[in-house]
């Protein structure tokens, strides 16, 4: 493979069609590999490391791997396969991992998809260089942004992220005029603490955010932790806790919707 060809490869773990929970309409979601954060509850732990990870298939004993490289051309053609279904703002969603970390490589893809009128949304943590974000703003139609842990120290120690970087990027997204949707993953003992909730509420108020989606913590990623030989945390949360969080937001005039996968 030539250097030129290598430059046109992105590293992903999966492409999923008929996704209904990742933005408006029917979407195809690409899961990019690599993320700077290490959220203990991450439901896609196989996307955290950039390097391709091998694991043993429990059923067959075969060695398989999480992650593969795909050319932009192949990726684009796979994403366009479902174009008949991308009506009413449906389209593609970049997810991961942190999908924007690889944006330098796939700008040509975004350009091509934009030209074809394909709606592009991104699930981003916003813990990325500001220059990367500003590149993305040119192409992205909808930002799906997590609000996880707001306290500087806890964010640093638990997620390995710099909250100031996040806040700076959040400002830029809001200022850009692009559509965005704020989501809070509700994880017992991590994000769903009294203190953190109240901080998130304050942040929403400060930024003029009137709506938030509350993602119900789940343990669907558990099997993947086992394959990776990694410890996992219990991310599950009760419905009464979820309702309580919703009410907290409601009391501050922020419309909160509970989502369950």
């Amino acid at each position, binding site marked *: 493979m030539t250097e030129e060809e290598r430059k046109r490869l992105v590293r992903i773990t999966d492409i*999923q*069609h*008929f996704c209904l929970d990742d933005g408006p309409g*029917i979407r195809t979601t690409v899961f990019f590999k690599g993320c700077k954060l290490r959220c203990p509850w991450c439901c896609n732990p196989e996307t955290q490391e950039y390097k391709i990870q091998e694991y043993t298939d429990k*059923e*067959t004993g075969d060695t398989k791997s999480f992650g593969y490289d795909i050319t932009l051309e192949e990726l684009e053609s796979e994403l366009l396969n*479902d174009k008949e279904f991308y*009506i009413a703002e449906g389209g593609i969603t970049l997810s991961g991992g942190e999908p924007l970390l690889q944006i330098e490589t796939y700008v040509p893809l975004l350009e091509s998809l934009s030209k074809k009128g394909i709606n592009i949304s991104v699930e981003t943590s916003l813990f990325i260089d500001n220059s990367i974000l500003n590149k993305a703003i040119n192409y992205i139609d909808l930002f799906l942004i997590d609000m996880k842990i707001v306290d500087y120290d806890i964010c640093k120690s638990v997620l390995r992220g710099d909250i100031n970087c996040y806040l700076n990027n959040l400002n830029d997204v809001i200022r850009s005029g692009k559509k965005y949707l704020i989501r809070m993953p509700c994880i017992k003992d991590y994000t769903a603490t009294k203190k953190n909730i109240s901080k998130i509420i304050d942040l929403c108020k400060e930024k003029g955010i009137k709506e938030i989606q509350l993602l119900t913590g789940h343990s669907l990623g558990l099997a993947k932790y086992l394959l990776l030989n990694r410890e996992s945390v219990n991310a599950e949360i009760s419905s009464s806790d979820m309702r309580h969080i919703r009410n907290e937001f409601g009391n501050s005039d922020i419309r909160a919707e509970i989502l369950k996968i």
Partner: protein
Amino acid sequence: MNIKQKIKNDLWRINYILPFARKDIAGSGSRKDLLRSLARNFKSVHPVVNKSVAIATLELFKSIEINVLDDSTFVYFLDASKTLAVPGNIIDNFSIDYSKIIYESFESHRSNAVGEDQYGKDAKIICDAIELLRHRIENELKKGTKDAKRAQKIIWFERLLNNKAEHFDEALQRILFFNQILWQTRHRLNGLGRLDKILGPVYQHDLENGYLDQKNAKTLIGEFLTILGRYHSYKSTALYGDIGQIIILGGTEKNGSYFYNDLTKLFLSCQSKNNAPDPKTILRVSRQTPSSLLALSVECLRSATGSPLFSNDDVIIPALIDAGIVEEDAYNYCTSACWEPFIVGNSFDQNNMQIFDYFEGLDSTLKQNEKMSFQSFDELLQAYRKENIKNARVTAINADEIKWAKDPIVSILTNDCNRKRKDISDGGAKYNNYGITTVGLPNVINSLLTIRDLVFDKHEYTLSELETARLCDYEGYEDIYKRIVSHTKAFGYDKKESIQLINILTGDVVAELRKHSNNFGGQLKIGISSPDYIKKAKSANADYSGRKKGDPYITHISADGVSLTELVRFASKLEYDKGRCNGNVVDFFISPSLIEKHFDKFELFLRGAIDTGFFQMQMNVMDSNTLIAAKKNPQDYPGLIVRVWGFSAYFVELPENYQDLLIERARQAEKI
């Protein structure tokens, strides 16, 4: 000729019992169950035996018990203890053209039919039989106290044969009367046709004259569906619920516009509230189908009666024209009892004549490996194709061995028969084709591509090694079995290689079939859907798709683990021309919670799927937990309805192997 065909053709004095007994042996297929069921039915169903269908019918209508229900707006009954025993097989799996007895008087057809020739003599007797039945009902109605309902019924029956129908309710009564006649004379799987289109003018007329409003119409349609749902067990054919009273709604007009009216919506919404497996609905859709109608159909799906099935005019109509159907007929297509396109009023087509099993040929080809020792995938494929073509030839020849019973009633109401003085069973209709349903293709595709990969590309095994394992049903060869199961599946996935292979194989079979026109000069056609994916597989060896000996073949166009959009894309790339139009149904499970949560998006999915170009599509809106619970505690789920092959049934009435397959498929769908 095989023994089954001989019994059906020639042992007519006793074979009348088969349609009544068939459903009881669907599960076990055991001889003991068959004998028990036959004995029971011989005791309860008494035939009028006569060599002449017309005379037998007359005698039958003299003797059946007249049962005028007072609790319904309509008269509708069957005497389940009486039937016909006549020579030959009675045609079934079709609809008559009910508009002929609504907008024209039956008398006008009678006068065209009767005459001095044999056709005309039979027609006279059959018309006398119908008049006799009408008269007996009228007399019975006049016996009781005359309330308003009864007075109305008397008027309907006085006018029944000599006048056109004046009103919507009168039209419904006529449909019921002739439908009742068909069932009573042992026609099975009696469809109803395009009822929104047929009833549109009389409904509109009533609306404009203030005789009817939408609300009344809805009540009447509700009653109409309920009453057709009676005699559930008597009407069931191959399984309980396999009744085939199909209503076709909507549809593309010749000018490209999309037809629908108030009745389309009323029938759909009554279907969703009917809470019974039959009657059932097909919605003909196209790019022009309005969103409001799609939303209503999602609502209907959510009610979990298995209806509607979607039939994509944008794909089907061109395929029908290509198969030799005249344009105006193609635009007006209905279907046989499940999904096989059928031209109502012009057609004798018997669309479920034979089953072609794609695996049979692969099984015998693979067994030749011992002698031939195939050196390349291409060699194997060519041998298999030859075998398939040979089997197709046998299928075509077998299809022509059937003897049909004369059918004066249906002939009178079918275009061309009266003019040609030829009974429909002698080729009197405009179209006289036979439909062949097919099974095993998905298993064959997965098997072939697995062999290619493991034997000829990767050289992990020799074909002999695989064959030894397969013919032992993988007992003692668990490693090989694991390897096969873990192998990427091909059928149902949007991959060039599997799609090309399918198109080659279906092309081979249909080309061979079409070399052999049937006794009436009609052609043979095929489709990738069949009722027999369980029955046919019972005696079939294991294959390389992961199916073990005797387990069911993959259902219609379906695949475990594939996304719905990909499955639809796959289906849209299959070729349906050159006679490959005998029903091609994408079939999947979807959880009720998904539709609940994403109602609007599911409508978008339907829209996108129509644009992508599926042929037909049906689904079970059902989760595995409900099915598992219903299997365990049937008494708690008497009303649970599931979609089986092309019909809906009460889950608890299904044989265990059918229940298990549905549970497994629901489970697989939840993994995606």
